[in-house]
């Protein structure tokens, strides 16, 4: 049974707005000015003809002259003395670490060009986030500081050392405070350096400050179990997951790891063993986690507290004092049902909350304790070290600083002038500090108000280590010499504190020799070398203790209710602050790959915005892009509004991490800074506030990739079923089975191709894909995909070879196919929409429509099942793009690598070093598209030939597949019946997008399954 479920990419499409209908009729987004030319005499007049001939003559002459230049002389400069382990043309891989994940850094001729996950990484098994993928580009950022600075002028390291040391000596004698402000440091060696520094200067103190803080969870564990730790969660062990605003698949604590865990109970393998976890999300704004949930209930920030109280009451069976039914009926009903499900899955349940409020988190702890989660899905004994920020400590420090009690300050990877809610206090306080040192590698908001900037090495230039979760130690090793005259911050601290060990490499080695190598059963020089190869050691896990929540909840409930009451202030709009998957807390705002990565849900690039519920848009009279002024907490910003289905009515969501002013030319003034809406309450930063909205009358269109490529109502693009249906018939919705129609019977147009050796194909599991977009960044890095900027994205000219299509559909109460338009109309409840993500890339059709229309044979079929694209043959007719049913071909409108209009991105000799030398950059006027990483296929085959063995399955991994934390993408040779991809494609869930066209796509998708029970709200 084919579903007639209605999917839509944007509200324009759903509502069939006149503009959308009009636009959709046309081939081009913008009208082509043919009429202008034809009007007023046009080509028929005498003068245009003469002018035309003149221009033609001049053009031919100029082109001929321009072509008559000497062939440039190319130099070939070999190494003077070649390092033994470098072979020009062959990549070297070094193990290192990023954010606690073990990674591999691919270097060519000594320069890092790609970050790849270490397949043995304990956290994500080789998967990496888009941020990690994009991090390599920041190494080549020309705006990094090139030497130390003092009071904004260049300074030498020797001078800086003398100055800082003499100042420190004087300050030590003076007895006032010294503070090291850092974002969370999980590196044992760095922590040891700081401890040594503090031993040298007893009046010094280390304060951890995270812009997006998890103090609430840490404090709540202190209160509940006397353990001030951030627990390590195991989503893979949970059968029922309930999240209150925790965006654990996007931004919460360790998303790449959580995606891997989460998908383990939802992917093909799990489904085939008839098992699928259930995930219920209560949240305000539409997050990537909410879109992946089986059930998503929109609630206001003010309702979260009461929802948790009710949930506790329902699970424990005794109503807490103050428990009242929620005004939100759907949420209220859901809570009761969720409580039943959680109880049924006792020991295999997990409740998480994104709130940074201690009292809220204590409630969550109490619920988890009732569900027996501790020791099963939550581990307090092997905790996470990824976040350790202490909000209260930092706030106290700010007031001390204002009181003139602090004389020296060191900022390490912290930028509070930008991301602290009350940056005015900081700037005021800083004026009273005698010595202000920043280790920032950019002259950022905080560094620019410091005396001394001692620029830190980039992580790819540094030695170090990391310890993301207890017992898991990863090593950071440099893959390139420092590009500029920078010095590692730890090194500076060692020198300034007159440490016995002056060199940080020696320090790290000593630390490992003494403390850490033994944990992995290693020792000595051999052990160290093994470590540099493997990248990490894993100590035995601590035994898990039993934790039972035993505190009285009455006080906690009162605090929660007070807070809720404060938020539910009359008819004021509630604001929820969140991080976007691409930008997170804004530290990488100067990275163009991340700025151009569309937000998974809203598909907005290069901006933050106010997400407003569609009904509120109507109620308040807003149109998309209307700039509204948001006022609250004594702060105001103006942002364009965006109609976001799923946004709770009466709330707006705004992303933090934007509005940097001194991030660099890429990130400066992109969006507005929403951090000042934070507030501090009971010692923690609060991420929700009440605000008032006013329309400014301006309209600032957002550059979305959302409404591109309308699907024209074709229903074979997305296929979706419920878990119950799947259990009855695994091939549900696919049309697979006996009566599967063969669309190639009447094939008249295309010759059939033989694939004698290989048939490279792909399988994408829609049930595993969370839509995070890491593949998009990985593809850009691997294939030299250019960045085009906000204006060009707005003209639908983004160049990404792979995109994640996001389709909305309405909640159909688990009924499956709704067949009649009238029924669809009844379901049009924009607050409860469902979302399916679909990675869309060139399908490498065997009967490719693009190939048949190319007049110059620039795109042809290969004997290995690839749709090849010869860029230098392409003359840019764009027929292929028009004829492509999947709209995956991208046209180079400009020479993005060398056009002054795009000068803020990658156009300098330095940044160009990040390019993959095995992939050519494309010139203007040329079509490009996914090549299935043909350079990797070729390299894999060559390696096998040299080693005189057949290509093994898994030898060749394409870039998107390699980085996918969910393992949603499988690539391989379909001619090999035992390959992973052959097995995946024989799964009953496999279908081919737009199969009815008979184009024989090479990429099979697996039906999205949602675990929806009949009792659903």
């Amino acid at each position, binding site marked *: 049974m084919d579903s007639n479920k209605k999917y839509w990419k944007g509200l324009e499409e759903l509502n069939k707005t006149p503009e959308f209908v009009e636009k959709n009729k046309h081939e081009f987004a913008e009208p082509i000015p043919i009429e202008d030319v034809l009007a007023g005499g046009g080509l028929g007049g005498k003068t245009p003809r003469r002018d035309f001939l003149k221009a033609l003559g001049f053009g031919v002459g100029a082109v001929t002259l321009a072509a008559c230049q000497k062939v440039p002389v190319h130099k070939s400069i*070999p190494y003077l003395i070649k390092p033994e382990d470098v072979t020009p043309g062959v990549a070297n891989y070094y193990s290192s670490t990023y954010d606690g994940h073990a990674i591999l850094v691919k270097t060519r001729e000594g320069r890092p060009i790609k970050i790849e996950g270490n397949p043995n990484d304990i956290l994500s098994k080789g998967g990496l986030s888009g941020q990690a993928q994009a991090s390599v580009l920041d190494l080549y950022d020309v705006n990094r500081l090139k030497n130390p600075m003092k009071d904004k002028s260049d300074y030498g390291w020797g001078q800086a050392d003398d100055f800082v040391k003499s100042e420190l000596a004087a300050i030590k004698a003076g007895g006032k405070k010294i503070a090291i402000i850092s974002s969370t440091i999980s590196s044992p060696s760095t922590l040891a350096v700081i401890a040594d520094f503090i031993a040298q200067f007893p009046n010094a103190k280390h304060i951890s400050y995270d812009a997006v803080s998890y103090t609430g969870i840490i404090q709540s564990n202190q209160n509940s179990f006397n353990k001030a730790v951030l627990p390590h969660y195991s989503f893979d062990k949970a059968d029922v997951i309930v999240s209150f605003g925790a965006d654990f698949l996007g931004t919460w604590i360790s998303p790449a790891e959580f995606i891997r865990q989460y998908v383990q109970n939802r992917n093909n393998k799990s489904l085939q063993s008839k098992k699928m976890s259930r995930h219920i999300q209560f949240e305000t704004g539409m997050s990537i986690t909410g879109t992946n949930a089986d059930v998503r209930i929109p609630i206001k920030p003010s309702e979260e507290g009461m929802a948790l109280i009710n949930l506790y009451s329902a699970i424990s069976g005794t109503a807490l004092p103050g428990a009242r039914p929620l005004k939100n009926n759907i949420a209220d009903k859901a809570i009761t049902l969720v409580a039943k499900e959680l109880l049924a899955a006792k020991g295999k349940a997990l409740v998480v909350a994104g709130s940074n409020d201690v009292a809220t988190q204590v409630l969550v702890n109490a619920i988890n304790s009732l569900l027996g989660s501790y020791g099963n899905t939550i581990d307090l004994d092997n905790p996470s070290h990824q976040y350790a920020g202490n909000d209260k400590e930092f706030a106290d420090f700010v007031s001390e600083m204002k009181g003139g009690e602090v004389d020296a300050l060191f900022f390490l990877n912290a930028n509070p002038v930008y991301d602290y809610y009350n940056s005015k206090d900081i700037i005021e306080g800083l004026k009273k500090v005698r010595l202000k040192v920043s280790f920032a590698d950019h002259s950022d908001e905080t560094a620019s108000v410091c005396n001394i900037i001692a620029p830190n090495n980039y992580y790819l230039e540094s030695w170090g280590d990391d310890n993301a979760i207890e017992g898991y130690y990863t090593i950071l090793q440099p893959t390139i010499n420092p590009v500029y005259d920078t010095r590692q911050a730890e090194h500076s601290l060692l020198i300034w504190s007159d440490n016995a060990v002056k060199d940080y490499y020696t320090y790290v080695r000593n630390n490992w020799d003494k403390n850490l190598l033994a944990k992995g059963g290693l020792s000595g020089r051999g052990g160290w070398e093994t470590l540099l190869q493997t990248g990490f050691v894993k100590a035995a896990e601590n035994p898990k203790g039993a934790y039972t929540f035993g505190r009285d909840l009455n006080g906690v409930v009162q605090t929660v209710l007070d807070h809720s009451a404060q938020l539910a202030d009359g008819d004021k709009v509630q604001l929820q602050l969140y991080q976007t998957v691409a930008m997170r807390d804004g530290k990488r705002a100067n990275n163009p790959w991340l700025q151009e990565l569309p937000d998974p849900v809203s598909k907005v690039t290069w901006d933050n915005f106010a997400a407003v519920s569609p009904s509120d848009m109507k109620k308040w009279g807003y149109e998309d892009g209307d700039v509204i002024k948001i006022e609250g907490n004594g702060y105001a910003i103006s942002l364009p509004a965006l109609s976001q289905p799923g946004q709770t009515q009466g709330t707006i969501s705004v992303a933090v991490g934007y509005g940097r002013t001194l991030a660099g030319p890429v990130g400066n003034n992109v969006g507005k800074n929403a951090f000042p809406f934070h507030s501090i309450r009971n010692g923690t930063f609060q991420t929700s506030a009440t605000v008032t909205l006013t329309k400014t009358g301006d309209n600032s269109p957002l550059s979305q990739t959302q409404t591109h490529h309308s699907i024209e109502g074709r229903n074979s693009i997305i296929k979706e079923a419920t878990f119950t249906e799947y259990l009855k018939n695994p091939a549900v919705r696919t049309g697979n089975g006996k009566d599967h129609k063969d669309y190639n019977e009447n094939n008249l147009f295309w010759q059939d191709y033989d694939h004698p050796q290989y048939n490279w194909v792909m399988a994408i599991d829609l049930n595993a894909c969370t839509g995070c977009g890491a593949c998009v960044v990985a593809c850009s890095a691997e294939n030299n995909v250019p960045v085009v900027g906000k204006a060009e994205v707005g003209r639908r000219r983004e160049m990404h070879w792979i995109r994640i299509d996001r389709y909305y559909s309405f909640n159909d109460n688990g009924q499956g196919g709704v067949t009649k338009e009238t029924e669809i109309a009844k379901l049009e409840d924009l607050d409860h929409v469902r979302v399916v993500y679909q990675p869309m890339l060139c399908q490498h059709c065997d009967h490719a429509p693009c190939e048949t229309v190319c007049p110059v044979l620039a795109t042809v079929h290969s004997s290995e099942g690839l749709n090849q*694209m010869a860029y230098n043959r392409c003359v840019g007719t764009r027929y292929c793009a028009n004829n492509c049913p999947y709209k995956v071909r991208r046209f180079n409108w400009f020479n993005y690598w060398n056009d002054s209009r795009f000068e803020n991105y990658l156009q300098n000799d330095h940044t160009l070093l990040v390019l993959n030398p095995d992939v*050519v950059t494309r010139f203007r006027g040329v079509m490009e598209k996914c090549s299935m990483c043909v350079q990797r296929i070729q390299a894999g085959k060559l390696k096998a030939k040299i080693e005189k063995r057949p290509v093994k399955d898994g030898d060749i991994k394409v870039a998107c597949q390699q980085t996918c934390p969910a393992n949603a993408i499988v690539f391989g040779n379909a001619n090999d019946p035992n390959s992973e991809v052959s097995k995946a494609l024989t799964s009953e869930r496999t279908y081919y997008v737009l199969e009815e066209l008979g184009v024989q796509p090479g990429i099979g998708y697996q039906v999205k399954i949602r675990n929806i029970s009949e009792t659903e709200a």
Partner: protein
Amino acid sequence: MGSFSLIFKKFSRSVFLVAGFAFFASFAYAQGDAAKGEALFKAKCTVCHKIDSRLIGPALGPTITDETDDKWLTKWIQNNQALIAGKDAKALKIYNEYNQAGMTTFGEISDGDAANIIAYARTTWKTMQAAPKPGATGQPAPETGPGNLVIFALIGVIILAFIIILVLNKVVATLERLLLKNEGLFVEEAEVEKTPVDRLATIKKLAKNKKLVFFVLLCGTLALGSWSWVTMWNTNVHTGYQPVQPIKFPHDLHAGAMKIDCQYCHSGAYKSKNASIPSLNVCMNCHKTIDRTLNSKTPSPEIQKIYDALGYDPQTQKYDSTKARPIQWIRIHNLPDLAYFNHSQHVKVAKLRCQTCHGPVETMKEVYQYSPLTMKWCIQCHKRTNVDFKGNAYYTKMEAVHALLKAGKPVTAALMGGIECSKCHY
């Protein structure tokens, strides 16, 4: 004339040599056989020693004088470590002078062999001193055939002779005319005026012949057309491109005469897409000891360029990295960026000889581009070259290919997909 002097010089040198050998051979203390010693010297000693100058070890000529104690020297050659260990004063002095770098011990050299080597060192050194120095003869004559100067002189003479002949001819003609005039037979003037009129008339007459005009135009068009056709096809084809390199590196000497394997220097060809130009440490493997061409008296200025680039001082044998600067070779084989080429695929997998594409490099004094490096050239080769399956398990699983093999048909690289776009363009 040049060759005369050359022959004379060579002759005189050999005379000197023979005389020298005969003379020195008569000395009583040179009991060894210098001829036998020469073979031993070249086999065992040349890595570290030269007769006339210091290498890793001292220059043997000035060191082994007539006064040297041969017995001690034999002991030193056979086991210098023992002498040093025995705190022999002379041994310790040399040992310390050469930064305590111990000489290899040669236990296998007998007393007689040692005497031969010593004899060789003595005689050679004497010969060298007795031989006329290049400066003394005042004839820095080229060592191989007539130089450019001779050729130019020859050309000059020929031209001069030609001019003289012309002038003489003219003179003869004038004289003849004078003679004729005197005899009253000179009647040429009328003819001179007639000739141009006739010529023009012929051209006009020919121009009226339409067939001829058509023929001439056709020929012209064909000539011009084929010229532009060829020119356009050869645009950016640089066969024969032979730029002047910063070092006149003679491949004919290294790969030809010395028969050094290509991969000794271009080691990347086996494992990488780049064959790679050798880094200078590879050059120094040999050129640490070889600083001049064969039979040359002075160090080669071209080899000196290697030392300069490395900041290496051949006297002190020390490297100064501050003076080092890489050599900027000029790339001869320029494939465009849009084409991906991998050496290891061709050299290691297909087992092609380097010469297949690079031509007879072993005969090139300076390398030039031998192949056109056009896509047509690539494709032709891919269509004609059979894939070498033997002994490579990579190909075992390819069923379709097997079928062809069974049918007895050859399998070309093209059949294996070797001429598909994305084999080279991505």
